[in-house]
Protein backbone atom coordinates (compact mmCIF):
# COMPACT_ATOMS: atom_id res chain seq x y z
CA UNK A 1 0.00 0.00 0.00
CA UNK A 2 2.86 2.38 0.84
CA UNK A 3 4.21 1.96 -2.66
CA UNK A 4 0.86 2.97 -4.20
CA UNK A 5 0.73 6.05 -1.95
CA UNK A 6 4.29 6.96 -2.93
CA UNK A 7 3.42 6.66 -6.62
CA UNK A 8 0.56 9.12 -6.19
CA UNK A 9 2.76 11.57 -4.27
CA UNK A 10 5.54 11.21 -6.80
CA UNK A 11 3.04 12.18 -9.49
CA UNK A 12 1.65 15.12 -7.49
CA UNK A 13 2.84 15.73 -3.93
CA UNK A 14 -0.04 18.16 -3.35
CA UNK A 15 -2.58 15.30 -3.38
CA UNK A 16 -4.35 15.35 -0.03
CA UNK A 17 -4.43 12.32 2.28
CA UNK A 18 -8.22 12.39 1.99
CA UNK A 19 -8.09 12.06 -1.78
CA UNK A 20 -5.39 9.39 -1.64
CA UNK A 21 -7.55 7.44 0.80
CA UNK A 22 -10.56 7.66 -1.52
CA UNK A 23 -8.58 6.67 -4.58
CA UNK A 24 -7.05 3.65 -2.88
CA UNK A 25 -10.15 2.65 -0.95
CA UNK A 26 -8.53 2.87 2.50
CA UNK A 27 -8.95 5.03 5.61
CA UNK A 28 -7.55 8.57 5.64
CA UNK A 29 -5.92 7.95 9.03
CA UNK A 30 -4.05 4.99 7.56
CA UNK A 31 -2.73 7.17 4.72
CA UNK A 32 -1.59 9.81 7.20
CA UNK A 33 0.13 7.20 9.33
CA UNK A 34 1.99 5.66 6.38
CA UNK A 35 3.10 9.04 5.03
CA UNK A 36 4.31 10.17 8.48
CA UNK A 37 6.31 6.98 8.81
CA UNK A 38 7.80 7.37 5.33
CA UNK A 39 8.75 10.97 6.18
CA UNK A 40 10.37 9.90 9.42
CA UNK A 41 12.34 7.06 7.87
CA UNK A 42 13.58 9.21 5.02
CA UNK A 43 11.68 7.16 2.42
CA UNK A 44 10.14 10.46 1.39
CA UNK A 45 13.10 12.84 1.18
CA UNK A 46 11.14 16.01 0.49
CA UNK A 47 8.26 17.63 -1.35
CA UNK A 48 9.68 19.90 -4.04
CA UNK A 49 8.34 21.19 -7.33
CA UNK A 50 9.83 19.93 -10.58
CA UNK A 51 11.06 23.14 -12.15
CA UNK A 52 11.92 23.59 -15.79
CA UNK A 53 14.65 26.16 -15.16
CA UNK A 54 15.37 26.60 -18.84
CA UNK A 55 12.01 28.37 -19.13
CA UNK A 56 12.81 30.86 -16.33
CA UNK A 57 16.57 31.28 -16.32
CA UNK A 58 17.96 30.14 -19.67
CA UNK A 59 21.53 30.95 -18.63
CA UNK A 60 21.39 28.50 -15.75
CA UNK A 61 23.40 25.40 -16.58
CA UNK A 62 23.54 21.76 -15.64
CA UNK A 63 26.56 19.58 -16.19
CA UNK A 64 27.23 15.88 -15.82
CA UNK A 65 30.77 15.36 -14.61
CA UNK A 66 32.33 11.93 -14.92
CA UNK A 67 34.86 11.49 -12.13
CA UNK A 68 37.52 8.82 -11.86
CA UNK A 69 38.61 8.49 -8.28
CA UNK A 70 40.98 6.48 -6.16
CA UNK A 71 39.03 4.12 -3.87
CA UNK A 72 40.23 3.72 -0.31
CA UNK A 73 40.69 0.55 1.68
CA UNK A 74 37.48 -0.58 3.49
CA UNK A 75 35.38 2.45 2.52
CA UNK A 76 35.76 2.42 -1.26
CA UNK A 77 34.39 5.63 -2.75
CA UNK A 78 32.23 6.68 0.21
CA UNK A 79 34.52 9.34 1.61
CA UNK A 80 35.34 11.05 -1.64
CA UNK A 81 31.70 10.87 -2.80
CA UNK A 82 30.42 12.44 0.42
CA UNK A 83 33.02 15.13 0.22
CA UNK A 84 31.94 16.03 -3.30
CA UNK A 85 28.25 15.86 -2.39
CA UNK A 86 28.58 18.57 0.26
CA UNK A 87 29.36 21.33 -2.22
CA UNK A 88 26.23 23.43 -2.69
CA UNK A 89 26.47 23.47 -6.49
CA UNK A 90 26.34 19.66 -6.56
CA UNK A 91 22.81 18.53 -7.36
CA UNK A 92 23.36 14.78 -7.14
CA UNK A 93 26.14 12.23 -6.93
CA UNK A 94 26.02 8.64 -8.10
CA UNK A 95 28.51 5.79 -7.89
CA UNK A 96 28.27 4.13 -11.29
CA UNK A 97 29.61 1.17 -13.18
CA UNK A 98 31.53 1.59 -16.43
CA UNK A 99 34.47 3.68 -17.57
CA UNK A 100 34.47 6.05 -14.59
CA UNK A 101 33.45 5.87 -10.95
CA UNK A 102 31.23 8.78 -9.95
CA UNK A 103 28.70 10.81 -11.93
CA UNK A 104 28.31 14.25 -10.40
CA UNK A 105 25.45 16.50 -11.51
CA UNK A 106 26.25 20.15 -11.02
CA UNK A 107 23.83 23.04 -11.22
CA UNK A 108 25.22 26.57 -11.64
CA UNK A 109 24.32 30.10 -12.67
CA UNK A 110 26.47 29.91 -15.81
CA UNK A 111 29.17 27.75 -17.41
CA UNK A 112 32.02 29.77 -15.84
CA UNK A 113 30.77 28.79 -12.41
CA UNK A 114 30.88 25.12 -13.43
CA UNK A 115 34.37 25.54 -14.82
CA UNK A 116 35.52 27.21 -11.61
CA UNK A 117 33.97 24.45 -9.52
CA UNK A 118 35.74 21.75 -11.49
CA UNK A 119 39.11 23.52 -11.65
CA UNK A 120 39.22 24.88 -8.12
CA UNK A 121 37.17 22.47 -6.03
CA UNK A 122 36.61 19.10 -7.67
CA UNK A 123 39.76 18.29 -9.63
CA UNK A 124 42.22 19.27 -6.82
CA UNK A 125 40.51 16.96 -4.31
CA UNK A 126 42.90 14.28 -3.14
CA UNK A 127 41.74 11.01 -4.69
CA UNK A 128 40.23 12.56 -7.81
CA UNK A 129 42.23 11.20 -10.75
CA UNK A 130 40.38 12.81 -13.65
CA UNK A 131 37.17 14.57 -14.60
CA UNK A 132 35.22 14.92 -17.85
CA UNK A 133 32.50 17.58 -17.95
CA UNK A 134 29.42 17.30 -20.19
CA UNK A 135 27.17 20.37 -20.26
CA UNK A 136 23.46 19.78 -20.69
CA UNK A 137 22.42 21.45 -23.95
CA UNK A 138 18.73 20.61 -24.02
CA UNK A 139 16.38 18.62 -21.80
CA UNK A 140 13.92 16.26 -23.43
CA UNK A 141 12.56 14.48 -20.39
CA UNK A 142 12.88 15.43 -16.73
CA UNK A 143 11.79 13.39 -13.71
CA UNK A 144 9.57 11.19 -15.88
CA UNK A 145 7.95 14.12 -17.65
CA UNK A 146 8.33 14.94 -21.32
CA UNK A 147 9.31 18.52 -22.14
CA UNK A 148 7.59 20.77 -24.67
CA UNK A 149 5.64 19.21 -27.51
CA UNK A 150 6.07 15.63 -26.44
CA UNK A 151 2.45 14.77 -27.13
CA UNK A 152 0.78 16.63 -24.27
CA UNK A 153 -2.74 17.93 -24.46
CA UNK A 154 -5.99 16.11 -24.87
CA UNK A 155 -6.56 15.55 -28.54
CA UNK A 156 -9.69 13.45 -28.15
CA UNK A 157 -13.11 14.46 -29.41
CA UNK A 158 -15.09 16.03 -26.57
CA UNK A 159 -17.92 13.53 -26.93
CA UNK A 160 -17.60 10.04 -28.36
CA UNK A 161 -19.54 6.78 -28.07
Amino acid sequence: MLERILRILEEDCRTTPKEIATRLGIEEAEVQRLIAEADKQGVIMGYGAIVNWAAVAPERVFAFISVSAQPERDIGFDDIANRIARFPEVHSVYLVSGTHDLTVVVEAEDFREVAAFVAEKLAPLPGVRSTATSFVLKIYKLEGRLMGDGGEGDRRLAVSP
Partner: protein
Amino acid sequence: MSRLPSRLRINSYVANMPPSGIRKFFDLVLGMEDVISLGVGEPDFPTPWRMCDAAVDCMQRGYTSYTSNLGMLPLRSAIADYLRAEFGVSYDPETEILVTNGVSEALDLVMRALLEPGDEVLVAEPCYVAYAACVELAGGRAVMIRTRAEDEFKLRADDVEAAITDRTRGILFGYPNNPTGAVMTREDLQPIAEVVARYGLVCISDEIYAHLTYNGTHTCFASLPGMKEHTVLLNGFSKAYAMTGWRLGYACAPAPVIEAMNRIHAYTALCAPILAQFAALEGLRQCRPERDAMIESYDQRRRYVLAALKEMGLDCFEPKGAFYVFPSVRSTGLDSEEFAERLLNSQKVAVVPGNAFGASGAGHVRCCYATSMENLRAAMERLAAFLDSLPRQV
Protein backbone atom coordinates in the same frame (compact mmCIF):
# COMPACT_ATOMS: atom_id res chain seq x y z
CA MET B 1 -27.64 22.97 -53.78
CA SER B 2 -27.86 21.17 -57.08
CA ARG B 3 -30.43 18.42 -57.44
CA LEU B 4 -29.18 14.86 -57.25
CA PRO B 5 -29.72 12.68 -60.32
CA SER B 6 -33.14 11.04 -60.14
CA ARG B 7 -31.77 7.55 -59.68
CA LEU B 8 -29.16 8.60 -57.11
CA ARG B 9 -31.09 7.86 -53.94
CA ILE B 10 -30.03 7.08 -50.43
CA ASN B 11 -31.11 3.62 -49.33
CA SER B 12 -34.37 4.11 -47.46
CA TYR B 13 -33.30 2.19 -44.35
CA VAL B 14 -30.14 4.29 -44.07
CA ALA B 15 -32.02 7.50 -44.81
CA ASN B 16 -34.44 6.76 -41.98
CA MET B 17 -31.88 5.69 -39.39
CA PRO B 18 -32.22 7.96 -36.37
CA PRO B 19 -29.01 9.86 -35.64
CA SER B 20 -27.10 8.67 -32.59
CA GLY B 21 -28.10 10.54 -29.43
CA ILE B 22 -24.40 11.11 -28.89
CA ARG B 23 -24.11 12.96 -32.17
CA LYS B 24 -26.68 15.52 -31.11
CA PHE B 25 -24.82 16.18 -27.89
CA PHE B 26 -21.50 16.32 -29.68
CA ASP B 27 -22.85 19.15 -31.83
CA LEU B 28 -23.87 21.06 -28.70
CA VAL B 29 -20.42 20.77 -27.14
CA LEU B 30 -18.63 21.64 -30.35
CA GLY B 31 -17.67 25.28 -30.43
CA MET B 32 -17.88 25.79 -26.66
CA GLU B 33 -14.64 26.71 -24.96
CA ASP B 34 -13.18 25.60 -21.62
CA VAL B 35 -15.44 22.59 -21.44
CA ILE B 36 -14.30 19.79 -19.15
CA SER B 37 -15.43 16.70 -20.97
CA LEU B 38 -16.58 13.59 -19.17
CA GLY B 39 -18.23 12.68 -22.44
CA VAL B 40 -15.47 10.72 -24.12
CA GLY B 41 -15.53 7.00 -24.69
CA GLU B 42 -11.83 6.30 -24.89
CA PRO B 43 -8.69 6.17 -22.72
CA ASP B 44 -6.88 9.41 -21.87
CA PHE B 45 -3.50 7.70 -22.19
CA PRO B 46 -1.61 7.72 -25.45
CA THR B 47 -0.75 4.27 -26.80
CA PRO B 48 2.24 2.88 -24.85
CA TRP B 49 5.36 4.16 -26.58
CA ARG B 50 6.85 0.70 -27.10
CA MET B 51 3.88 -0.06 -29.36
CA CYS B 52 4.15 3.20 -31.30
CA ASP B 53 7.86 2.55 -31.70
CA ALA B 54 7.13 -0.92 -33.07
CA ALA B 55 4.87 0.67 -35.69
CA VAL B 56 7.52 3.24 -36.62
CA ASP B 57 10.05 0.45 -36.93
CA CYS B 58 7.66 -1.50 -39.13
CA MET B 59 7.30 1.49 -41.47
CA GLN B 60 11.05 2.03 -41.60
CA ARG B 61 11.65 -1.58 -42.55
CA GLY B 62 9.07 -1.37 -45.31
CA TYR B 63 6.35 -3.50 -43.73
CA THR B 64 3.57 -1.46 -45.26
CA SER B 65 1.71 -4.13 -47.22
CA TYR B 66 -1.50 -6.11 -46.88
CA THR B 67 -1.47 -9.02 -44.49
CA SER B 68 -3.39 -12.28 -44.54
CA ASN B 69 -7.15 -11.59 -44.51
CA LEU B 70 -7.37 -13.20 -41.10
CA GLY B 71 -4.53 -11.05 -39.76
CA MET B 72 -0.85 -11.91 -39.28
CA LEU B 73 -0.46 -15.40 -37.87
CA PRO B 74 2.02 -14.32 -35.15
CA LEU B 75 -0.56 -11.83 -33.92
CA ARG B 76 -3.37 -14.40 -33.98
CA SER B 77 -1.11 -16.81 -32.09
CA ALA B 78 -0.29 -14.13 -29.53
CA ILE B 79 -4.01 -13.39 -29.13
CA ALA B 80 -4.70 -17.11 -28.63
CA ASP B 81 -1.96 -17.35 -25.97
CA TYR B 82 -3.25 -14.25 -24.24
CA LEU B 83 -6.88 -15.45 -24.17
CA ARG B 84 -5.79 -18.80 -22.77
CA ALA B 85 -3.58 -17.24 -20.10
CA GLU B 86 -5.92 -14.44 -19.04
CA PHE B 87 -9.40 -15.90 -19.47
CA GLY B 88 -8.95 -19.65 -19.77
CA VAL B 89 -10.40 -19.99 -23.28
CA SER B 90 -8.67 -21.84 -26.13
CA TYR B 91 -8.94 -20.74 -29.74
CA ASP B 92 -7.06 -22.13 -32.72
CA PRO B 93 -5.14 -19.21 -34.25
CA GLU B 94 -5.31 -20.85 -37.69
CA THR B 95 -9.10 -21.10 -37.95
CA GLU B 96 -10.89 -19.51 -35.01
CA ILE B 97 -9.54 -15.95 -34.80
CA LEU B 98 -10.14 -13.07 -37.21
CA VAL B 99 -8.33 -9.73 -36.77
CA THR B 100 -10.60 -6.82 -37.72
CA ASN B 101 -10.71 -3.04 -38.01
CA GLY B 102 -11.84 -2.58 -34.44
CA VAL B 103 -14.64 -4.44 -32.70
CA SER B 104 -16.99 -2.24 -34.76
CA GLU B 105 -16.13 -4.11 -37.94
CA ALA B 106 -16.29 -7.47 -36.20
CA LEU B 107 -19.77 -6.63 -34.96
CA ASP B 108 -20.93 -5.75 -38.46
CA LEU B 109 -19.35 -8.91 -39.91
CA VAL B 110 -20.90 -11.26 -37.42
CA MET B 111 -24.38 -9.89 -38.05
CA ARG B 112 -24.03 -10.08 -41.81
CA ALA B 113 -22.52 -13.55 -41.61
CA LEU B 114 -25.28 -14.96 -39.42
CA LEU B 115 -28.58 -13.19 -40.01
CA GLU B 116 -31.36 -13.74 -42.54
CA PRO B 117 -33.88 -10.93 -43.09
CA GLY B 118 -36.24 -10.75 -40.14
CA ASP B 119 -34.07 -12.75 -37.75
CA GLU B 120 -34.14 -11.37 -34.26
CA VAL B 121 -31.19 -10.59 -32.03
CA LEU B 122 -31.76 -9.77 -28.38
CA VAL B 123 -29.72 -6.76 -27.32
CA ALA B 124 -29.12 -5.93 -23.68
CA GLU B 125 -29.42 -2.19 -23.12
CA PRO B 126 -28.33 0.42 -22.21
CA CYS B 127 -25.53 -0.40 -24.59
CA TYR B 128 -23.00 0.83 -27.09
CA VAL B 129 -24.77 2.91 -29.71
CA ALA B 130 -23.88 0.67 -32.67
CA TYR B 131 -25.42 -2.61 -31.49
CA ALA B 132 -28.99 -2.23 -32.76
CA ALA B 133 -27.85 -0.48 -35.93
CA CYS B 134 -25.49 -3.33 -36.84
CA VAL B 135 -28.25 -5.90 -36.38
CA GLU B 136 -30.68 -3.92 -38.49
CA LEU B 137 -28.23 -2.96 -41.25
CA ALA B 138 -27.76 -6.71 -41.70
CA GLY B 139 -31.51 -7.11 -42.17
CA GLY B 140 -32.18 -8.40 -38.69
CA ARG B 141 -34.41 -7.02 -36.00
CA ALA B 142 -32.90 -5.82 -32.73
CA VAL B 143 -35.08 -6.71 -29.75
CA MET B 144 -33.97 -4.60 -26.84
CA ILE B 145 -33.91 -6.09 -23.36
CA ARG B 146 -33.99 -3.64 -20.49
CA THR B 147 -31.61 -3.89 -17.61
CA ARG B 148 -32.30 -2.04 -14.39
CA ALA B 149 -30.45 0.20 -11.99
CA GLU B 150 -31.71 -1.91 -9.06
CA ASP B 151 -29.98 -4.95 -10.64
CA GLU B 152 -26.82 -2.86 -11.15
CA PHE B 153 -27.63 -3.09 -14.87
CA LYS B 154 -26.86 -6.79 -15.00
CA LEU B 155 -28.72 -8.85 -17.57
CA ARG B 156 -31.36 -11.19 -16.11
CA ALA B 157 -32.00 -14.64 -17.55
CA ASP B 158 -35.77 -14.35 -17.06
CA ASP B 159 -35.83 -11.17 -19.16
CA VAL B 160 -33.82 -12.93 -21.86
CA GLU B 161 -36.09 -15.96 -21.88
CA ALA B 162 -39.24 -13.83 -22.00
CA ALA B 163 -38.02 -12.12 -25.18
CA ILE B 164 -37.21 -15.28 -27.13
CA THR B 165 -39.41 -16.05 -30.17
CA ASP B 166 -39.14 -18.50 -33.07
CA ARG B 167 -37.15 -15.88 -34.94
CA THR B 168 -34.57 -15.32 -32.21
CA ARG B 169 -31.10 -16.28 -33.35
CA GLY B 170 -28.94 -14.88 -30.66
CA ILE B 171 -28.14 -12.41 -27.98
CA LEU B 172 -25.70 -9.51 -27.99
CA PHE B 173 -24.28 -7.84 -24.92
CA GLY B 174 -21.18 -6.09 -23.70
CA TYR B 175 -19.79 -6.50 -20.17
CA PRO B 176 -18.00 -4.66 -18.62
CA ASN B 177 -20.61 -2.32 -19.99
CA ASN B 178 -20.52 0.95 -21.82
CA PRO B 179 -22.30 3.15 -20.60
CA THR B 180 -23.08 1.77 -17.13
CA GLY B 181 -19.76 0.29 -15.98
CA ALA B 182 -21.68 -2.84 -14.93
CA VAL B 183 -19.93 -6.21 -14.93
CA MET B 184 -21.31 -9.74 -15.01
CA THR B 185 -19.55 -12.26 -12.77
CA ARG B 186 -19.36 -15.97 -13.51
CA GLU B 187 -22.39 -16.49 -11.23
CA ASP B 188 -24.31 -13.76 -13.09
CA LEU B 189 -23.49 -15.26 -16.50
CA GLN B 190 -24.30 -18.86 -15.63
CA PRO B 191 -28.13 -18.53 -15.86
CA ILE B 192 -27.74 -16.68 -19.18
CA ALA B 193 -25.59 -19.55 -20.46
CA GLU B 194 -28.30 -22.01 -19.46
CA VAL B 195 -30.90 -20.13 -21.53
CA VAL B 196 -28.48 -19.84 -24.46
CA ALA B 197 -27.86 -23.60 -24.33
CA ARG B 198 -31.54 -24.52 -23.92
CA TYR B 199 -32.62 -22.54 -27.00
CA GLY B 200 -29.52 -23.21 -29.09
CA LEU B 201 -28.75 -19.52 -29.41
CA VAL B 202 -25.57 -17.77 -30.41
CA CYS B 203 -24.13 -15.32 -27.90
CA ILE B 204 -22.23 -12.36 -29.27
CA SER B 205 -20.18 -11.18 -26.32
CA ASP B 206 -18.43 -7.82 -26.69
CA GLU B 207 -15.61 -7.96 -24.14
CA ILE B 208 -13.62 -4.93 -25.25
CA TYR B 209 -13.50 -3.67 -21.64
CA ALA B 210 -12.50 -7.09 -20.22
CA HIS B 211 -9.27 -5.85 -18.65
CA LEU B 212 -10.95 -2.87 -17.09
CA THR B 213 -12.51 -4.98 -14.36
CA TYR B 214 -11.97 -3.86 -10.77
CA ASN B 215 -12.47 -5.80 -7.53
CA GLY B 216 -12.21 -9.16 -9.24
CA THR B 217 -11.47 -10.78 -12.55
CA HIS B 218 -13.37 -10.76 -15.81
CA THR B 219 -15.23 -13.89 -16.86
CA CYS B 220 -15.16 -14.58 -20.57
CA PHE B 221 -18.56 -15.90 -21.66
CA ALA B 222 -16.89 -18.56 -23.84
CA SER B 223 -15.15 -19.95 -20.75
CA LEU B 224 -18.44 -21.14 -19.24
CA PRO B 225 -18.97 -24.90 -19.64
CA GLY B 226 -20.29 -25.72 -23.10
CA MET B 227 -20.44 -22.09 -24.20
CA LYS B 228 -17.47 -21.90 -26.58
CA GLU B 229 -19.52 -23.37 -29.46
CA HIS B 230 -22.30 -20.84 -28.81
CA THR B 231 -20.10 -17.79 -28.52
CA VAL B 232 -18.74 -15.17 -30.84
CA LEU B 233 -16.21 -13.39 -28.65
CA LEU B 234 -15.37 -9.83 -29.65
CA ASN B 235 -12.39 -8.04 -28.18
CA GLY B 236 -9.66 -5.66 -29.24
CA PHE B 237 -6.88 -3.32 -28.25
CA SER B 238 -8.66 0.03 -28.03
CA LYS B 239 -9.34 0.11 -24.31
CA ALA B 240 -6.77 -2.06 -22.51
CA TYR B 241 -3.91 -0.86 -24.73
CA ALA B 242 -5.23 2.66 -25.44
CA MET B 243 -5.29 2.07 -29.20
CA THR B 244 -8.66 3.52 -30.22
CA GLY B 245 -7.38 5.45 -33.24
CA TRP B 246 -5.47 2.48 -34.65
CA ARG B 247 -8.68 0.49 -35.23
CA LEU B 248 -7.76 -3.01 -34.18
CA GLY B 249 -10.05 -5.67 -32.84
CA TYR B 250 -10.69 -9.36 -33.27
CA ALA B 251 -13.40 -11.97 -33.26
CA CYS B 252 -13.06 -15.51 -31.93
CA ALA B 253 -15.66 -18.11 -32.82
CA PRO B 254 -16.11 -21.65 -34.11
CA ALA B 255 -14.25 -22.08 -37.42
CA PRO B 256 -17.34 -22.01 -39.73
CA VAL B 257 -18.39 -18.64 -38.27
CA ILE B 258 -14.90 -17.15 -38.63
CA GLU B 259 -14.73 -18.53 -42.17
CA ALA B 260 -18.04 -16.85 -43.06
CA MET B 261 -17.03 -13.55 -41.44
CA ASN B 262 -13.71 -13.66 -43.25
CA ARG B 263 -15.47 -14.03 -46.62
CA ILE B 264 -17.14 -10.66 -46.09
CA HIS B 265 -14.05 -9.12 -44.46
CA ALA B 266 -11.86 -10.18 -47.42
CA TYR B 267 -14.10 -8.24 -49.82
CA THR B 268 -14.94 -5.22 -47.70
CA ALA B 269 -11.84 -4.54 -45.60
CA LEU B 270 -9.26 -6.99 -46.97
CA CYS B 271 -7.27 -6.89 -43.75
CA ALA B 272 -6.67 -4.81 -40.66
CA PRO B 273 -3.89 -2.20 -40.98
CA ILE B 274 -0.47 -3.82 -40.79
CA LEU B 275 1.03 -1.07 -38.59
CA ALA B 276 -1.69 -1.57 -36.02
CA GLN B 277 -1.12 -5.32 -36.11
CA PHE B 278 2.61 -4.92 -35.44
CA ALA B 279 1.91 -2.46 -32.63
CA ALA B 280 -0.63 -4.82 -31.06
CA LEU B 281 1.77 -7.73 -31.23
CA GLU B 282 4.36 -5.65 -29.39
CA GLY B 283 1.68 -4.73 -26.86
CA LEU B 284 0.79 -8.34 -26.11
CA ARG B 285 4.45 -9.32 -25.82
CA GLN B 286 5.89 -6.36 -23.93
CA CYS B 287 3.37 -3.94 -22.52
CA ARG B 288 1.73 -5.68 -19.64
CA PRO B 289 3.29 -3.26 -17.08
CA GLU B 290 1.95 -0.27 -19.01
CA ARG B 291 -1.46 -1.90 -19.30
CA ASP B 292 -1.62 -2.70 -15.60
CA ALA B 293 -0.51 0.83 -14.66
CA MET B 294 -3.34 2.30 -16.75
CA ILE B 295 -5.86 0.00 -15.09
CA GLU B 296 -4.61 0.96 -11.62
CA SER B 297 -4.99 4.59 -12.58
CA TYR B 298 -8.59 4.10 -13.83
CA ASP B 299 -9.46 2.27 -10.64
CA GLN B 300 -8.20 5.14 -8.46
CA ARG B 301 -10.20 7.65 -10.47
CA ARG B 302 -13.26 5.42 -10.36
CA ARG B 303 -13.18 5.43 -6.55
CA TYR B 304 -12.60 9.16 -6.48
CA VAL B 305 -15.51 10.02 -8.77
CA LEU B 306 -17.86 7.58 -7.12
CA ALA B 307 -17.11 9.06 -3.68
CA ALA B 308 -17.55 12.60 -5.02
CA LEU B 309 -20.92 11.80 -6.62
CA LYS B 310 -22.16 10.16 -3.43
CA GLU B 311 -21.05 13.14 -1.39
CA MET B 312 -23.15 15.36 -3.66
CA GLY B 313 -26.13 13.14 -3.06
CA LEU B 314 -26.39 11.66 -6.53
CA ASP B 315 -27.62 8.10 -6.53
CA CYS B 316 -25.03 5.85 -8.15
CA PHE B 317 -24.41 2.11 -7.95
CA GLU B 318 -20.75 1.10 -7.82
CA PRO B 319 -19.60 0.37 -11.37
CA LYS B 320 -16.99 -2.38 -11.32
CA GLY B 321 -15.75 -2.14 -14.89
CA ALA B 322 -14.95 -0.01 -17.94
CA PHE B 323 -14.28 3.69 -17.21
CA TYR B 324 -17.75 5.04 -16.70
CA VAL B 325 -20.02 5.90 -13.83
CA PHE B 326 -23.72 6.08 -14.55
CA PRO B 327 -25.43 8.09 -11.83
CA SER B 328 -29.17 8.56 -11.68
CA VAL B 329 -30.23 12.19 -12.00
CA ARG B 330 -33.89 11.55 -11.17
CA SER B 331 -33.51 13.19 -7.74
CA THR B 332 -32.93 16.51 -9.51
CA GLY B 333 -36.32 16.38 -11.22
CA LEU B 334 -34.59 16.72 -14.59
CA ASP B 335 -34.49 14.14 -17.34
CA SER B 336 -31.14 12.98 -18.73
CA GLU B 337 -31.05 15.43 -21.60
CA GLU B 338 -32.16 18.46 -19.61
CA PHE B 339 -29.60 17.62 -16.96
CA ALA B 340 -26.76 17.24 -19.45
CA GLU B 341 -27.69 20.37 -21.39
CA ARG B 342 -28.09 22.57 -18.35
CA LEU B 343 -24.89 21.26 -16.79
CA LEU B 344 -23.06 21.99 -20.02
CA ASN B 345 -24.49 25.47 -20.42
CA SER B 346 -24.10 26.60 -16.83
CA GLN B 347 -20.91 24.85 -15.71
CA LYS B 348 -19.30 23.71 -18.95
CA VAL B 349 -19.05 20.08 -17.96
CA ALA B 350 -19.99 17.59 -20.66
CA VAL B 351 -21.63 14.30 -19.72
CA VAL B 352 -23.68 12.11 -22.04
CA PRO B 353 -27.44 11.65 -21.48
CA GLY B 354 -28.12 8.01 -20.57
CA ASN B 355 -30.98 7.66 -23.04
CA ALA B 356 -28.45 7.97 -25.88
CA PHE B 357 -27.63 4.34 -25.03
CA GLY B 358 -31.20 3.07 -25.03
CA ALA B 359 -34.49 3.75 -23.31
CA SER B 360 -33.46 2.05 -20.08
CA GLY B 361 -30.62 4.54 -19.70
CA ALA B 362 -33.16 7.33 -19.25
CA GLY B 363 -32.81 9.19 -15.96
CA HIS B 364 -29.06 8.60 -15.90
CA VAL B 365 -26.00 10.29 -17.36
CA ARG B 366 -22.74 8.69 -18.41
CA CYS B 367 -19.62 10.24 -16.92
CA CYS B 368 -16.30 8.99 -18.21
CA TYR B 369 -13.50 9.24 -15.66
CA ALA B 370 -10.71 8.65 -18.20
CA THR B 371 -9.42 12.18 -17.82
CA SER B 372 -6.78 13.79 -15.62
CA MET B 373 -7.24 14.03 -11.84
CA GLU B 374 -6.99 17.79 -12.27
CA ASN B 375 -9.95 17.73 -14.67
CA LEU B 376 -11.88 15.37 -12.44
CA ARG B 377 -11.41 17.58 -9.37
CA ALA B 378 -12.61 20.62 -11.30
CA ALA B 379 -15.48 18.70 -12.89
CA MET B 380 -16.71 17.42 -9.53
CA GLU B 381 -16.59 20.94 -8.08
CA ARG B 382 -18.58 22.30 -10.99
CA LEU B 383 -21.07 19.46 -10.81
CA ALA B 384 -21.60 20.10 -7.11
CA ALA B 385 -22.14 23.80 -7.83
CA PHE B 386 -24.65 22.89 -10.52
CA LEU B 387 -26.60 20.63 -8.16
CA ASP B 388 -26.63 23.36 -5.51
CA SER B 389 -28.09 25.77 -8.05
CA LEU B 390 -31.08 23.52 -8.72
CA PRO B 391 -34.31 24.04 -6.76
CA ARG B 392 -34.58 21.44 -4.03
CA GLN B 393 -36.76 18.45 -4.78
CA VAL B 394 -39.05 17.41 -1.99
